[in-house]
């Protein structure tokens, strides 16, 4: 693993080959906002909130920092007018789906996003895939997955698996940037395995 030297927001940063810009930045104490990124999971690159500007060989471009690898002589800018504008737009679009999400509202304040800019489409889930990937990659339970595609894409629990696995786990709940996940689980559990609730040991 060879060492890579790059610049982040004007400061020299040392990183290891194979790291992403996001990892290098976090190690150097520079924060970049993320929604779909999680250390334990494969990079997903779905929400695009971690977009930064990178100047390489005299050309500047916008890249998704959680999947873009570091390289020598990169000059990374984590905040600029353009980056902020993109993040604001992403947040406004997501807020149309999950207007009550604390995570999104907080980021929205930071980037001056207007939560009422777009008509509300209350799907609540923003398709970040954290729950789906966590369940598949970390827990290897595959209890929750995506259905359909495009604007109709949504998460769903497979009731049989959920009845078996989820009650003792629920580790994905706190990962969700909205409360869609919990709501979906409650719905499935009440419809598909109403007795599970009584049989399960009570939590204290």
């Amino acid at each position, binding site marked *: 693993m060879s060492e890579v030297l790059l610049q982040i927001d004007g400061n020299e940063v040392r990183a290891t080959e194979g790291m992403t810009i996001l990892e290098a930045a976090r190690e150097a104490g520079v924060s970049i906002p993320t929604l779909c990124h999680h250390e334990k999971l494969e990079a997903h690159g779905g929400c695009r909130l971690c977009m930064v500007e990178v100047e390489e060989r005299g050309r500047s471009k916008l890249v998704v920092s959680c999947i873009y690898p570091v390289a020598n002589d990169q000059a990374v800018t984590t905040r600029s007018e353009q980056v902020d504008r993109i993040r604001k737009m992403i947040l406004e679009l997501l807020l149309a789906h999950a207007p009550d999400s604390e995570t999104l509202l907080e980021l929205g304040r930071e980037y001056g996003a207007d939560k009422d800019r777009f008509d509300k489409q209350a799907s609540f889930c923003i398709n970040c895939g954290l729950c*789906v990937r966590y*369940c*598949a990659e970390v827990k290897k339970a*595959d*209890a*929750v*997955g*995506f*259905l*359909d*595609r495009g604007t109709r894409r949504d998460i*769903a629990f*497979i009731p*049989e*698996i959920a009845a078996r696995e989820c009650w003792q786990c629920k580790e994905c709940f706190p990962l969700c940037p909205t409360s869609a996940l919990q709501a979906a689980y409650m719905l499935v559990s009440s419809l598909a395995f109403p007795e599970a609730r009584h049989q399960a040991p009570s939590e204290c």
Partner: protein
Amino acid sequence: MDSERVDQIIEEYQCEASALIQILLRIQEEAHWLSRNALERVSERLGVSMTRIMHIATFYKAFSLVPKGRHEVHICVGTACHVRGAERVLDSVEEATGLKPGETDLDLKFSLETVNCVGCCALGPVMQVDKKTYGKLSAGETINVLQSYE
């Protein structure tokens, strides 16, 4: 489709997880839908999780999770066909079969769908039944075509 037939199809592909979509397409083609039993069998034999299979089965329009008719009728309502009278063709099909787009009749004979341009606009208005394409249709011809299917 019984699970033996599903197994046969799976074995033709050596239980390769990478052949998942091919296998689903074969089941869809023969059974005209993907039943829960079939999907569970595929999941078990290929070692692919049910969530993954459901993701794929709902992603592609070629798959259906509800039974479809033996014959899939696709009426093109793309721009060219629309101008050339797709509406008339659609109306006569709806009348003859009693179906609206997206529906399947109780005898599982026909499933009706509208599509947007099948790539032969010069033949418009176009209807496809299964894999056969009928062009320059009048309302009367449309009915004749449908009647030729069992």
